[in-house]
Protein backbone atom coordinates (compact mmCIF):
# COMPACT_ATOMS: atom_id res chain seq x y z
CA UNK A 1 0.00 0.00 0.00
CA UNK A 2 2.75 2.42 0.91
CA UNK A 3 6.01 2.57 -0.96
CA UNK A 4 8.79 4.89 0.02
CA UNK A 5 11.79 5.03 -2.26
CA UNK A 6 14.95 7.04 -2.01
CA UNK A 7 13.46 9.61 0.32
CA UNK A 8 15.84 12.47 0.95
CA UNK A 9 15.14 15.34 3.27
CA UNK A 10 17.16 17.61 5.41
CA UNK A 11 18.05 21.08 6.23
CA UNK A 12 21.06 21.78 4.13
CA UNK A 13 23.72 19.94 2.21
CA UNK A 14 25.79 17.82 4.44
CA UNK A 15 23.38 17.43 7.31
CA UNK A 16 20.55 15.48 5.83
CA UNK A 17 18.14 13.91 8.18
CA UNK A 18 16.87 11.41 5.65
CA UNK A 19 19.45 10.03 3.31
CA UNK A 20 17.70 7.69 0.92
CA UNK A 21 15.00 5.97 2.94
CA UNK A 22 13.35 3.07 1.17
CA UNK A 23 10.76 0.63 2.44
CA UNK A 24 7.27 -0.58 1.79
CA UNK A 25 4.22 -1.50 3.82
CA UNK A 26 1.71 -4.00 2.52
CA UNK A 27 -2.01 -3.69 2.96
CA UNK A 28 -3.17 -4.88 6.35
CA UNK A 29 0.33 -4.98 7.84
CA UNK A 30 1.33 -3.40 11.08
CA UNK A 31 4.92 -2.27 10.63
CA UNK A 32 7.12 -0.73 13.29
CA UNK A 33 9.81 1.79 12.44
CA UNK A 34 12.47 1.66 15.08
CA UNK A 35 15.80 3.25 15.81
CA UNK A 36 17.55 5.41 18.30
CA UNK A 37 16.68 9.05 18.85
CA UNK A 38 17.59 11.34 16.04
CA UNK A 39 17.77 8.69 13.35
CA UNK A 40 15.00 10.32 11.35
CA UNK A 41 11.92 8.26 12.21
CA UNK A 42 9.64 11.19 12.92
CA UNK A 43 10.93 12.92 9.83
CA UNK A 44 9.80 9.98 7.71
CA UNK A 45 6.27 10.34 9.03
CA UNK A 46 6.34 14.06 8.48
CA UNK A 47 7.41 13.51 4.90
CA UNK A 48 4.59 11.05 4.31
CA UNK A 49 2.02 13.47 5.74
CA UNK A 50 3.18 16.30 3.54
CA UNK A 51 4.91 18.44 6.11
CA UNK A 52 8.25 18.41 4.33
CA UNK A 53 7.72 20.20 1.05
CA UNK A 54 11.43 20.17 0.26
CA UNK A 55 11.80 16.40 0.43
CA UNK A 56 12.84 14.49 -2.65
CA UNK A 57 12.31 10.93 -3.73
CA UNK A 58 9.12 8.91 -4.00
CA UNK A 59 6.28 8.24 -1.65
CA UNK A 60 3.46 6.27 -3.24
CA UNK A 61 0.15 5.41 -1.63
CA UNK A 62 -1.65 2.64 -3.51
CA UNK A 63 0.40 3.50 -6.53
CA UNK A 64 -0.26 7.23 -6.42
CA UNK A 65 2.57 9.65 -5.77
CA UNK A 66 1.88 11.74 -2.68
CA UNK A 67 5.23 13.43 -2.14
CA UNK A 68 4.80 17.09 -2.85
CA UNK A 69 1.07 17.10 -2.28
CA UNK A 70 -0.57 19.29 0.32
CA UNK A 71 -1.16 17.78 3.73
CA UNK A 72 -4.91 18.02 3.54
CA UNK A 73 -4.97 16.22 0.22
CA UNK A 74 -2.87 13.41 1.64
CA UNK A 75 -5.20 13.18 4.60
CA UNK A 76 -8.14 12.92 2.26
CA UNK A 77 -6.51 10.07 0.44
CA UNK A 78 -6.82 8.04 3.60
CA UNK A 79 -3.74 8.79 5.66
CA UNK A 80 -4.49 9.21 9.34
CA UNK A 81 -1.80 10.81 11.49
CA UNK A 82 -1.28 10.69 15.22
CA UNK A 83 1.83 12.85 15.68
CA UNK A 84 4.35 12.85 18.44
CA UNK A 85 3.05 14.89 21.32
CA UNK A 86 -0.49 14.18 20.20
CA UNK A 87 -1.26 17.74 19.10
CA UNK A 88 -4.77 17.79 20.37
CA UNK A 89 -6.70 21.03 20.44
CA UNK A 90 -6.43 21.94 24.11
CA UNK A 91 -9.18 24.52 24.11
CA UNK A 92 -11.69 22.34 22.32
CA UNK A 93 -13.82 19.75 24.04
CA UNK A 94 -13.28 16.06 23.46
CA UNK A 95 -16.27 16.06 21.15
CA UNK A 96 -14.94 19.04 19.18
CA UNK A 97 -11.57 17.38 18.83
CA UNK A 98 -13.25 14.34 17.33
CA UNK A 99 -15.33 16.54 15.05
CA UNK A 100 -12.09 18.02 13.74
CA UNK A 101 -11.30 14.51 12.65
CA UNK A 102 -14.31 14.31 10.34
CA UNK A 103 -15.13 17.79 9.13
CA UNK A 104 -12.12 17.93 6.87
CA UNK A 105 -12.93 14.64 5.23
CA UNK A 106 -14.95 14.76 2.09
CA UNK A 107 -17.61 12.09 2.01
CA UNK A 108 -18.01 11.74 5.74
CA UNK A 109 -20.95 13.31 7.58
CA UNK A 110 -20.11 16.06 10.02
CA UNK A 111 -20.73 14.12 13.15
CA UNK A 112 -18.85 11.84 15.48
CA UNK A 113 -19.90 8.29 14.56
CA UNK A 114 -21.63 6.13 17.16
CA UNK A 115 -18.88 3.54 17.19
CA UNK A 116 -16.26 6.09 18.20
CA UNK A 117 -16.90 6.09 21.91
CA UNK A 118 -17.21 2.31 21.89
CA UNK A 119 -13.53 2.07 21.16
CA UNK A 120 -12.37 4.21 24.05
CA UNK A 121 -15.32 4.30 26.45
CA UNK A 122 -13.34 6.33 28.96
CA UNK A 123 -13.68 9.31 26.68
CA UNK A 124 -17.45 9.18 26.61
CA UNK A 125 -17.83 10.61 30.11
CA UNK A 126 -15.36 13.33 29.21
CA UNK A 127 -17.17 14.28 26.07
CA UNK A 128 -17.78 17.92 26.95
CA UNK A 129 -14.58 18.40 28.89
CA UNK A 130 -11.84 20.69 27.65
CA UNK A 131 -9.26 18.41 26.08
CA UNK A 132 -6.38 20.25 27.71
CA UNK A 133 -7.54 18.99 31.08
CA UNK A 134 -7.40 15.31 30.14
CA UNK A 135 -4.60 13.11 31.38
CA UNK A 136 -1.78 11.99 29.12
CA UNK A 137 -3.34 8.63 28.49
CA UNK A 138 -6.75 10.09 27.74
CA UNK A 139 -5.24 12.61 25.37
CA UNK A 140 -3.47 9.80 23.56
CA UNK A 141 -6.73 7.91 23.23
CA UNK A 142 -8.35 11.07 21.94
CA UNK A 143 -5.63 11.65 19.37
CA UNK A 144 -5.89 8.09 18.11
CA UNK A 145 -9.66 8.20 18.01
CA UNK A 146 -9.57 11.50 16.19
CA UNK A 147 -7.51 9.87 13.47
CA UNK A 148 -9.76 6.81 13.40
CA UNK A 149 -13.04 8.67 12.95
CA UNK A 150 -11.64 10.03 9.71
CA UNK A 151 -11.79 6.43 8.38
CA UNK A 152 -8.20 6.25 7.17
CA UNK A 153 -6.76 3.31 5.31
CA UNK A 154 -3.23 3.98 6.51
CA UNK A 155 -2.64 4.97 10.11
CA UNK A 156 0.61 6.62 11.15
CA UNK A 157 1.49 6.75 14.83
CA UNK A 158 4.48 8.53 16.29
CA UNK A 159 5.51 7.46 19.78
CA UNK A 160 2.02 6.80 21.11
CA UNK A 161 3.35 5.64 24.45
CA UNK A 162 5.21 8.86 25.22
CA UNK A 163 3.91 10.59 28.30
CA UNK A 164 1.41 7.85 29.08
CA UNK A 165 1.59 5.69 32.17
CA UNK A 166 2.50 2.05 31.49
CA UNK A 167 -0.82 0.50 32.49
CA UNK A 168 -2.70 2.75 30.11
CA UNK A 169 -0.15 2.03 27.41
CA UNK A 170 -1.00 -1.64 27.57
CA UNK A 171 -4.69 -0.88 27.39
CA UNK A 172 -4.26 1.42 24.44
CA UNK A 173 -2.12 -1.17 22.71
CA UNK A 174 -4.74 -3.84 23.14
CA UNK A 175 -7.56 -1.62 21.94
CA UNK A 176 -5.55 -0.38 19.03
CA UNK A 177 -4.62 -3.84 17.91
CA UNK A 178 -8.19 -4.99 18.07
CA UNK A 179 -9.49 -1.97 16.20
CA UNK A 180 -6.85 -2.21 13.53
CA UNK A 181 -7.72 -5.82 12.90
CA UNK A 182 -11.46 -5.11 12.91
CA UNK A 183 -11.15 -2.31 10.42
CA UNK A 184 -8.32 -3.94 8.45
CA UNK A 185 -6.20 -0.87 8.71
CA UNK A 186 -2.61 -0.65 7.63
CA UNK A 187 -0.36 0.80 10.27
CA UNK A 188 3.10 2.33 10.35
CA UNK A 189 4.20 2.83 13.90
CA UNK A 190 7.19 4.70 15.29
CA UNK A 191 7.84 3.76 18.84
CA UNK A 192 10.61 3.45 21.42
CA UNK A 193 8.66 1.21 23.73
CA UNK A 194 9.58 -2.26 22.56
CA UNK A 195 6.96 -4.04 24.61
CA UNK A 196 4.12 -2.14 23.07
CA UNK A 197 5.45 -2.72 19.64
CA UNK A 198 6.06 -6.40 20.16
CA UNK A 199 2.40 -6.77 21.01
CA UNK A 200 1.29 -5.15 17.80
CA UNK A 201 3.66 -5.21 14.89
CA UNK A 202 4.27 -8.04 12.51
CA UNK A 203 7.38 -6.57 10.90
CA UNK A 204 10.13 -4.30 12.06
CA UNK A 205 12.18 -1.76 10.16
CA UNK A 206 15.38 -0.41 11.66
CA UNK A 207 16.68 3.06 10.89
CA UNK A 208 20.14 4.35 11.31
CA UNK A 209 21.56 7.69 10.18
CA UNK A 210 18.73 8.53 7.88
CA UNK A 211 18.34 5.16 6.20
CA UNK A 212 16.41 1.97 6.72
CA UNK A 213 19.24 -0.44 7.20
CA UNK A 214 17.56 -3.63 8.30
CA UNK A 215 14.27 -5.34 8.75
CA UNK A 216 12.99 -8.37 10.62
CA UNK A 217 9.77 -10.22 11.30
CA UNK A 218 8.45 -10.00 14.84
CA UNK A 219 9.46 -13.44 15.97
CA UNK A 220 13.12 -12.59 15.49
CA UNK A 221 12.96 -9.43 17.50
CA UNK A 222 13.09 -10.01 21.22
CA UNK A 223 14.58 -7.94 24.01
CA UNK A 224 18.23 -8.88 24.00
CA UNK A 225 18.17 -10.05 20.39
CA UNK A 226 20.87 -8.86 18.04
CA UNK A 227 18.50 -6.39 16.38
CA UNK A 228 17.74 -4.70 19.64
CA UNK A 229 21.38 -4.61 20.61
CA UNK A 230 22.47 -3.18 17.33
CA UNK A 231 19.82 -0.59 16.57
CA UNK A 232 18.06 0.29 19.75
CA UNK A 233 20.28 0.18 22.74
CA UNK A 234 22.15 3.26 23.71
Amino acid at each position, binding site marked *: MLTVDGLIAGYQHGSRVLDGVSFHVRRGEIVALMGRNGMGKTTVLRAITGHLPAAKGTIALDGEEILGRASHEIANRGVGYVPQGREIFDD*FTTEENLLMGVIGKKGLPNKVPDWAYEIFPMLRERRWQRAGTLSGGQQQQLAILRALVGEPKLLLLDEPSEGVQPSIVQEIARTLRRTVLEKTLTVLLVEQNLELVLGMASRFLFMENGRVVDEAPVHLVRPGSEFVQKYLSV
Partner: protein
Amino acid sequence: MGFVVTIGLDTLNFTLALLLVTLGLVVIYGLMNVINMAHGEFFLLGAYCVVLMQSAGLFFWWALLFAPIVLALVGLAVEELVIRHVYRRFIDSILGTWGISLALKQVVIIVFGPTAQSIVSPIPGPVQILGVTYPAYRLFIMGFTVLLAGATFLFFYRTYIGLAIRGVIANRAMAASLGINTRLLDRSTFAIGAALAGLAGAVMAPIMSVDPQMGVGFLIPAFLSILVGGTGTLLGALVGTAAISGITTIVSDAWTQVAAQVVVFTMAIIVIRLFPQGLTGRRS
Protein backbone atom coordinates in the same frame (compact mmCIF):
# COMPACT_ATOMS: atom_id res chain seq x y z
CA MET B 1 -29.21 61.96 33.29
CA GLY B 2 -30.11 62.46 29.66
CA PHE B 3 -26.50 63.30 28.99
CA VAL B 4 -25.41 59.96 30.40
CA VAL B 5 -27.91 58.07 28.31
CA THR B 6 -26.78 59.87 25.18
CA ILE B 7 -23.16 59.12 25.89
CA GLY B 8 -24.08 55.54 26.64
CA LEU B 9 -25.89 55.18 23.34
CA ASP B 10 -23.08 56.89 21.43
CA THR B 11 -20.57 54.57 23.03
CA LEU B 12 -22.61 51.53 22.17
CA ASN B 13 -22.88 52.75 18.62
CA PHE B 14 -19.18 53.21 18.15
CA THR B 15 -18.34 50.04 20.02
CA LEU B 16 -20.46 47.88 17.79
CA ALA B 17 -19.20 49.41 14.56
CA LEU B 18 -15.61 49.18 15.74
CA LEU B 19 -16.23 45.62 16.85
CA LEU B 20 -17.11 44.56 13.33
CA VAL B 21 -13.82 45.94 12.09
CA THR B 22 -11.85 44.53 14.99
CA LEU B 23 -13.32 41.04 14.70
CA GLY B 24 -12.16 40.80 11.11
CA LEU B 25 -8.67 41.91 12.06
CA VAL B 26 -8.41 39.50 14.96
CA VAL B 27 -9.48 36.50 12.95
CA ILE B 28 -7.16 37.33 10.08
CA TYR B 29 -4.30 37.80 12.51
CA GLY B 30 -5.07 34.64 14.42
CA LEU B 31 -5.48 32.57 11.31
CA MET B 32 -2.74 33.81 9.07
CA ASN B 33 -0.48 35.79 11.36
CA VAL B 34 -1.02 38.78 9.14
CA ILE B 35 -1.63 42.25 10.43
CA ASN B 36 -3.90 43.59 7.74
CA MET B 37 -3.12 47.28 7.46
CA ALA B 38 -5.62 47.53 4.63
CA HIS B 39 -8.53 46.69 6.88
CA GLY B 40 -9.38 50.33 7.42
CA GLU B 41 -9.63 50.70 3.66
CA PHE B 42 -12.09 47.81 3.53
CA PHE B 43 -14.23 49.85 5.89
CA LEU B 44 -13.67 52.86 3.65
CA LEU B 45 -14.69 51.03 0.50
CA GLY B 46 -17.88 49.91 2.20
CA ALA B 47 -18.75 53.51 2.93
CA TYR B 48 -17.99 54.49 -0.65
CA CYS B 49 -20.27 51.75 -1.90
CA VAL B 50 -23.00 53.78 -0.28
CA VAL B 51 -21.74 56.91 -2.03
CA LEU B 52 -21.93 55.03 -5.29
CA MET B 53 -25.46 53.86 -4.61
CA GLN B 54 -26.51 57.36 -3.71
CA SER B 55 -25.10 58.90 -6.85
CA ALA B 56 -26.73 56.14 -8.89
CA GLY B 57 -30.02 57.07 -7.32
CA LEU B 58 -30.54 53.72 -5.67
CA PHE B 59 -31.90 53.02 -2.24
CA PHE B 60 -29.41 53.01 0.59
CA TRP B 61 -30.44 49.48 1.53
CA TRP B 62 -29.02 48.11 -1.69
CA ALA B 63 -25.65 49.19 -0.41
CA LEU B 64 -25.98 46.83 2.52
CA LEU B 65 -26.18 44.02 0.01
CA PHE B 66 -23.68 45.43 -2.45
CA ALA B 67 -20.93 46.43 -0.04
CA PRO B 68 -20.16 43.03 1.48
CA ILE B 69 -20.18 41.38 -1.93
CA VAL B 70 -17.81 43.95 -3.37
CA LEU B 71 -15.56 43.75 -0.34
CA ALA B 72 -15.52 39.96 -0.37
CA LEU B 73 -14.28 40.12 -3.96
CA VAL B 74 -11.71 42.78 -3.07
CA GLY B 75 -10.64 40.64 -0.13
CA LEU B 76 -10.21 37.59 -2.34
CA ALA B 77 -8.16 39.61 -4.81
CA VAL B 78 -5.92 41.06 -2.12
CA GLU B 79 -5.42 37.65 -0.56
CA GLU B 80 -4.60 35.99 -3.82
CA LEU B 81 -2.33 38.70 -5.18
CA VAL B 82 -0.50 39.83 -2.09
CA ILE B 83 -1.18 38.08 1.19
CA ARG B 84 -0.51 34.64 -0.14
CA HIS B 85 3.04 35.66 -0.97
CA VAL B 86 3.93 37.40 2.23
CA TYR B 87 2.18 35.71 5.07
CA ARG B 88 5.26 33.88 6.14
CA ARG B 89 7.18 37.13 6.30
CA PHE B 90 5.55 38.91 9.14
CA ILE B 91 7.03 42.39 8.78
CA ASP B 92 6.60 42.28 5.03
CA SER B 93 2.96 41.37 5.45
CA ILE B 94 2.50 44.55 7.43
CA LEU B 95 4.19 46.54 4.71
CA GLY B 96 2.48 44.76 1.85
CA THR B 97 -0.96 45.35 3.29
CA TRP B 98 0.06 48.91 4.04
CA GLY B 99 0.88 49.40 0.38
CA ILE B 100 -2.50 47.95 -0.55
CA SER B 101 -4.16 50.40 1.79
CA LEU B 102 -2.38 53.30 0.09
CA ALA B 103 -3.33 52.01 -3.34
CA LEU B 104 -6.98 51.48 -2.39
CA LYS B 105 -7.16 54.93 -0.85
CA GLN B 106 -5.74 56.43 -4.02
CA VAL B 107 -8.27 54.58 -6.14
CA VAL B 108 -11.02 56.10 -4.04
CA ILE B 109 -9.48 59.56 -4.39
CA ILE B 110 -9.18 59.17 -8.13
CA VAL B 111 -12.71 57.91 -8.60
CA PHE B 112 -14.56 60.00 -6.04
CA GLY B 113 -12.32 62.95 -5.34
CA PRO B 114 -10.56 63.89 -2.11
CA THR B 115 -13.31 65.86 -0.44
CA ALA B 116 -15.80 64.58 2.05
CA GLN B 117 -19.14 63.29 0.92
CA SER B 118 -22.25 63.18 2.93
CA ILE B 119 -24.89 60.55 2.82
CA VAL B 120 -28.54 61.23 3.32
CA SER B 121 -29.77 59.42 6.37
CA PRO B 122 -32.01 56.55 5.25
CA ILE B 123 -34.14 56.77 8.40
CA PRO B 124 -34.38 60.47 9.09
CA GLY B 125 -35.72 61.96 12.23
CA PRO B 126 -35.27 61.38 15.92
CA VAL B 127 -36.93 58.96 18.24
CA GLN B 128 -37.62 59.05 21.94
CA ILE B 129 -35.70 56.42 23.83
CA LEU B 130 -34.89 56.05 27.50
CA GLY B 131 -35.91 59.62 28.07
CA VAL B 132 -33.70 61.21 25.43
CA THR B 133 -34.16 62.18 21.85
CA TYR B 134 -31.90 60.10 19.69
CA PRO B 135 -31.55 59.77 15.93
CA ALA B 136 -33.57 56.82 14.69
CA TYR B 137 -30.94 55.72 12.24
CA ARG B 138 -28.36 55.35 14.96
CA LEU B 139 -30.68 52.97 16.76
CA PHE B 140 -30.97 50.99 13.57
CA ILE B 141 -27.19 50.86 13.36
CA MET B 142 -27.00 49.44 16.83
CA GLY B 143 -29.62 46.82 16.18
CA PHE B 144 -28.06 45.85 12.90
CA THR B 145 -24.53 45.64 14.20
CA VAL B 146 -25.61 43.66 17.25
CA LEU B 147 -27.24 41.15 14.94
CA LEU B 148 -24.21 41.06 12.71
CA ALA B 149 -21.76 40.70 15.60
CA GLY B 150 -23.97 38.03 17.08
CA ALA B 151 -24.09 36.22 13.77
CA THR B 152 -20.31 36.39 13.56
CA PHE B 153 -19.88 34.88 16.99
CA LEU B 154 -22.40 32.17 16.15
CA PHE B 155 -20.56 31.48 12.96
CA PHE B 156 -17.29 30.96 14.73
CA TYR B 157 -18.57 29.06 17.73
CA ARG B 158 -21.56 27.12 16.44
CA THR B 159 -20.83 26.05 12.90
CA TYR B 160 -18.53 23.40 11.54
CA ILE B 161 -16.70 25.93 9.40
CA GLY B 162 -16.20 28.09 12.43
CA LEU B 163 -14.81 25.11 14.27
CA ALA B 164 -12.46 24.39 11.41
CA ILE B 165 -11.26 27.99 11.37
CA ARG B 166 -10.64 27.98 15.10
CA GLY B 167 -8.84 24.69 14.70
CA VAL B 168 -6.55 26.07 12.04
CA ILE B 169 -5.87 29.10 14.22
CA ALA B 170 -4.94 26.80 17.08
CA ASN B 171 -2.79 24.35 15.14
CA ARG B 172 -2.49 24.79 11.42
CA ALA B 173 -0.31 21.77 10.71
CA MET B 174 -2.51 19.38 12.63
CA ALA B 175 -5.68 20.73 11.07
CA ALA B 176 -4.16 20.19 7.63
CA SER B 177 -3.29 16.61 8.54
CA LEU B 178 -6.90 16.09 9.48
CA GLY B 179 -7.92 16.98 5.98
CA ILE B 180 -8.81 20.63 6.35
CA ASN B 181 -7.95 22.75 3.34
CA THR B 182 -6.15 25.55 5.11
CA ARG B 183 -5.52 27.62 1.98
CA LEU B 184 -9.20 27.66 1.15
CA LEU B 185 -9.99 28.67 4.71
CA ASP B 186 -7.43 31.47 4.60
CA ARG B 187 -8.95 32.87 1.49
CA SER B 188 -12.54 32.58 2.66
CA THR B 189 -11.82 34.00 6.09
CA PHE B 190 -9.97 36.95 4.65
CA ALA B 191 -12.89 37.60 2.34
CA ILE B 192 -15.35 37.34 5.23
CA GLY B 193 -13.27 39.71 7.34
CA ALA B 194 -13.19 42.18 4.47
CA ALA B 195 -16.93 41.85 3.92
CA LEU B 196 -17.59 42.50 7.61
CA ALA B 197 -15.47 45.63 7.57
CA GLY B 198 -17.18 46.76 4.38
CA LEU B 199 -20.60 46.22 5.85
CA ALA B 200 -19.58 48.19 8.92
CA GLY B 201 -18.43 51.00 6.66
CA ALA B 202 -21.62 50.96 4.68
CA VAL B 203 -23.87 51.03 7.69
CA MET B 204 -21.85 53.77 9.38
CA ALA B 205 -21.60 55.96 6.29
CA PRO B 206 -24.71 58.07 6.89
CA ILE B 207 -23.53 59.25 10.29
CA MET B 208 -19.92 59.95 9.38
CA SER B 209 -18.09 62.34 7.13
CA VAL B 210 -17.17 60.02 4.30
CA ASP B 211 -13.73 60.98 3.07
CA PRO B 212 -10.70 59.01 1.90
CA GLN B 213 -8.92 59.39 5.22
CA MET B 214 -11.57 57.71 7.31
CA GLY B 215 -9.96 54.31 6.98
CA VAL B 216 -7.07 55.16 9.24
CA GLY B 217 -9.53 56.65 11.68
CA PHE B 218 -11.00 53.20 12.24
CA LEU B 219 -7.87 51.16 11.80
CA ILE B 220 -6.02 52.76 14.66
CA PRO B 221 -8.74 52.27 17.26
CA ALA B 222 -9.14 48.71 16.00
CA PHE B 223 -5.46 47.98 16.50
CA LEU B 224 -5.43 49.58 19.89
CA SER B 225 -8.48 47.53 20.82
CA ILE B 226 -6.71 44.34 19.91
CA LEU B 227 -3.54 45.27 21.74
CA VAL B 228 -5.43 46.32 24.83
CA GLY B 229 -7.92 43.47 24.82
CA GLY B 230 -5.59 40.66 23.98
CA THR B 231 -4.68 39.27 20.60
CA GLY B 232 -5.64 35.70 21.22
CA THR B 233 -9.38 35.61 21.24
CA LEU B 234 -12.57 37.11 19.98
CA LEU B 235 -13.42 37.84 23.58
CA GLY B 236 -10.28 39.91 23.83
CA ALA B 237 -11.42 41.87 20.80
CA LEU B 238 -14.73 42.54 22.49
CA VAL B 239 -13.18 43.72 25.74
CA GLY B 240 -10.61 45.89 24.02
CA THR B 241 -13.13 47.42 21.67
CA ALA B 242 -15.47 48.27 24.51
CA ALA B 243 -12.64 49.90 26.43
CA ILE B 244 -11.25 51.93 23.54
CA SER B 245 -14.54 53.07 22.11
CA GLY B 246 -15.94 53.81 25.54
CA ILE B 247 -13.09 56.08 26.48
CA THR B 248 -13.00 57.68 23.04
CA THR B 249 -16.68 58.55 23.09
CA ILE B 250 -16.73 59.84 26.64
CA VAL B 251 -13.67 62.04 26.27
CA SER B 252 -14.85 63.15 22.84
CA ASP B 253 -18.24 64.24 24.10
CA ALA B 254 -16.86 65.85 27.24
CA TRP B 255 -13.85 67.51 25.67
CA THR B 256 -12.59 67.40 22.09
CA GLN B 257 -11.89 64.68 19.57
CA VAL B 258 -8.21 65.50 19.59
CA ALA B 259 -8.10 65.14 23.33
CA ALA B 260 -9.87 61.80 22.98
CA GLN B 261 -7.19 60.57 20.59
CA VAL B 262 -4.40 61.55 22.93
CA VAL B 263 -6.06 60.13 26.02
CA VAL B 264 -6.92 56.84 24.36
CA PHE B 265 -3.45 56.46 22.95
CA THR B 266 -1.76 57.21 26.25
CA MET B 267 -3.99 54.85 28.16
CA ALA B 268 -3.48 52.14 25.58
CA ILE B 269 0.29 52.44 25.93
CA ILE B 270 0.02 52.20 29.69
CA VAL B 271 -2.22 49.17 29.56
CA ILE B 272 0.05 47.42 27.10
CA ARG B 273 3.03 48.13 29.30
CA LEU B 274 1.30 46.67 32.31
CA PHE B 275 -0.41 43.82 30.49
CA PRO B 276 1.74 42.89 27.51
CA GLN B 277 -0.77 40.24 26.57
CA GLY B 278 -3.74 42.52 26.85
CA LEU B 279 -6.44 42.64 29.45
CA THR B 280 -7.77 39.17 28.76
CA GLY B 281 -4.25 37.95 29.16
CA ARG B 282 -3.93 35.41 26.38
CA ARG B 283 -1.67 35.62 23.39
CA SER B 284 -2.34 33.69 20.21
